[in-house]
């Protein structure tokens, strides 16, 4: 098996598959960790039990999602060496220390405090428990920062030299970390994580609402999720535009592929809304375009000239078909998120946020939109970087390990089988957790001694909170 396959293609498929599965979990847990910290903070500040119940509700889901993120992440940290050893040898001196800092500042922090956050509230007291929750949330953000510095350096490398054995060696760490695309990518990704989480929280609330469960927890979730959405969605669209302009400056070929511009347009490039890009024919079939709009968006001038892929050698063009479509999916979902946020805003202004079944249905349908948009965005930026691993410096074809196709193929099949089985089960468990009722844990609500004897009357406590 696999003797006739190209080992590099199989290695690329393996990396794409494992990283695509992995990114789903951090995208969710970055946002969810922050949400948990906010919920716990609100509970400590206001003392309202609804916040603690929501914390406990989402905490369990976080634990599951985090475990899946950890195990799929460990795979990533070894995949560089198993399948991309030439890249690791050459780029290790630059990207390795950044990943080292990710482990030292983020992974240990998250893992060290996760146990206390999940299981330790009664053991360490409220203040330290809140501190642990903040550390976990901070850890997820630090992790994103370092790994995006690495990825951004591969997109827009600077601050390095090449030594006598062909390794990239750091010359200026500040320039390496704060490379041109890093700030844009970081903000874009963190906002994406927050959007993803808001949409999931909103969808869970909407599902309970549609089932007629009019609890205060559901109201609070829905209000918080839609509030977050209406603020973050427009910010994200603005940020995406800035990120695109940054890409145009530093990786113009990627933007040509995103736009489907095979031809150069010396006096104003059209915006191709849809069409079928065809690399062999170097054209977009059945293109639906708006004249000059691309130049307006990218150059803020209707008649600004824009180069096309005809200025790039064929073998240095990225797979336009993929990038063109993944980009459109991401953008469309971004606007759909904005639409949902505005709809919720209008409903709230009219006092009908919790009383609009169609809004709730829309929020439910949009639940997974964040994940899809994150994946589409990453496909755009990663596939758009091809054929390079380090843009303009190192080709993907020169980056792989000297491993034969059967070995890469066999492990790829193993990853596919295991991931689908494991993560499908995980998805079922997470959905099941999302569908249950937020539990009342009496001892936490009394504010009294942590181990109050006997069972505190549940109904009285529930009455306090209005249900």
């Amino acid at each position, binding site marked *: 098996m696999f003797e006739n396959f190209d080992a590099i293609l199989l290695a690329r498929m393996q990396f794409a598959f494992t990283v695509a599965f992995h990114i789903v979990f951090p995208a969710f847990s970055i946002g969810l960790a922050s949400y948990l910290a906010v919920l716990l903070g609100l509970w400590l500040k206001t003392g309202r039990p609804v916040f603690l119940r929501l914390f406990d509700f989402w905490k369990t889901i976080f634990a599951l999602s985090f475990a899946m993120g950890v*195990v799929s992440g460990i795979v990533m*940290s070894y995949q560089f*060496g198993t399948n991309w050893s030439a890249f690791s040898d050459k780029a290790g001196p630059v990207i390795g220390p950044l990943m080292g800092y990710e482990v030292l500042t983020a992974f240990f922090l998250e893992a060290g405090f996760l*146990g206390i956050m999940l299981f330790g509230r009664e053991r360490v007291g409220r203040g330290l428990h809140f501190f642990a929750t903040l550390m976990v949330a901070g850890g997820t953000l630090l992790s994103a920062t370092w790994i995006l510095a690495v990825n951004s350096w591969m997109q827009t490398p600077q601050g390095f030299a090449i030594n006598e054995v062909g390794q990239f060696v750091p010359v200026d760490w500040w320039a390496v970390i704060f490379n041109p695309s890093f700030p844009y990518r970081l903000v874009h990704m963190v906002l994406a994580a927050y959007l993803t989480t808001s949409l999931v929280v909103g969808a869970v609330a909407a599902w309970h609402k549609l089932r007629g469960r009019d609890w205060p927890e559901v109201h609070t979730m829905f209000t918080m999720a839609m509030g977050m959405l209406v603020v973050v969605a427009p910010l994200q669209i603005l940020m995406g535009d800035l990120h695109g302009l940054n890409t145009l400056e530093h990786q113009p070929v990627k933007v040509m592929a995103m736009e489907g511009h095979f031809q150069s347009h010396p006096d104003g490039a059209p915006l191709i809304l849809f069409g079928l890009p065809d690399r062999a024919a170097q054209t977009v079939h059945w293109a639906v375009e708006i004249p000059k709009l691309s130049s307006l968006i990218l150059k803020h001038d209707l008649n600004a000239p824009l180069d096309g892929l005809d200025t790039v050698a064929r073998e240095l063009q990225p797979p336009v078909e993929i990038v063109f479509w993944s980009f459109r999916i991401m953008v469309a979902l971004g606007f759909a998120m904005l639409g949902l946020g505005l709809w919720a805003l209008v409903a709230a202004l009219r006092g009908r946020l919790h009383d609009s079944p169609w809004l709730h249905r829309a929020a439910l349908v949009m639940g997974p939109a964040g994940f899809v948009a994150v994946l589409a965005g990453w496909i755009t930026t990663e596939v758009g970087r091809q054929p390079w691993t380090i843009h303009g410096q190192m080709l993907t074809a020169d980056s792989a*390990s000297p491993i034969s196709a059967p070995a890469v193929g066999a*492990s790829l099949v193993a990853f596919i089988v295991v991931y689908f089985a494991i993560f499908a089960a995980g998805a079922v468990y997470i959905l099941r957790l999302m569908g249950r009722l937020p539990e009342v844990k009496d001892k936490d609500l009394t504010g009294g001694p942590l181990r109050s004897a006997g069972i505190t009357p549940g109904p009285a406590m529930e009455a306090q909170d209005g249900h």
Partner: protein
Amino acid sequence: MDIDLPTVWAAIIAFAVLAYVVMDGFDLGIGILFPLFPERKDRDVMMNSVAPVWDGNETWLVMGGGGLLAVFPLAYATILPALYAPLTAMLLALVFRGVAFEYRWRSDTGSRRWDLAFFGGSAVATFAQGIALGALVQGISIENRAYAGGWWDWLTPFSVLTGAALLAGYALLGACWLVLKTEGGLRDAARRLARRAGLATLAGMGVVSLWTPFLNAGYLDRWFGWPTIGFSLLVPLLVAGAAFGLWRGLTRGPDWLPFVSALGLFVLGYAGVGISFYPWMVPFALTIHEAAAPDESLAFLLVGSVVLLPMILAYTAYAYWVFRGKLRHGEGYH
């Protein structure tokens, strides 16, 4: 600065790997012992005894791997392809056992399945790590800054032996952890298992130690040459001391003594491997200095590590302290 950065980093990476081996060692060991406890409530306690810390334990594996990429990229780029199959098996096995920590509590009907995943994942991951160690000790072939062997080179009788020895060793750590953390019938059962695992571990260490010098003349020189022969003579005495502590702790107590003695055995075995390797990163093929990244990379990461590693050790110790003491039936975190 006159610090030999590659040597400093070799010591830090060696520490990270040791930390991984002993810490994830006992929670992998719990998984290995899982099928030997027929009562579900015992298995609940066993898993709960490591649930708050396993994630931190496993982070040391990322530190070992990620750290290698950062400071010894050439070693990372040659060892990992050489160990392609066992490492892939280890990663997939860790997926199974990692998710089992959460999934097991989410399903009544499926909990047996996830018990099996927890056991199978722990056992396969351990066996693969042992094989990886054996394959590294017997040497891997490197040409032109790349792995030059085939993808079955790791599989030899010696590597299978080290795999089996590590299974016994982690089972010992796991059983001793249970002696430390549990009471009653569960602790008694763990004591019995620890005795058997202890004998198997000592036998494994003995055979591996006798075999290693004959794999390569370099090891023979190292073990029986001056001055390292002093260590070769001292280690068996220290091992005997640790074994005595283990036996005594398992027969008369106190409950912390077996775990500490088992840790001692691991540290001694690990030190033996370290003495055999130094100054090689990959034995007889790649030295620490050849594999090292340029000093700019090493210095940059060291500056932070000097501050961060003590902090990590401090809050890790704190997390262990928070969850200290014996765990009773029905007292769980889930």
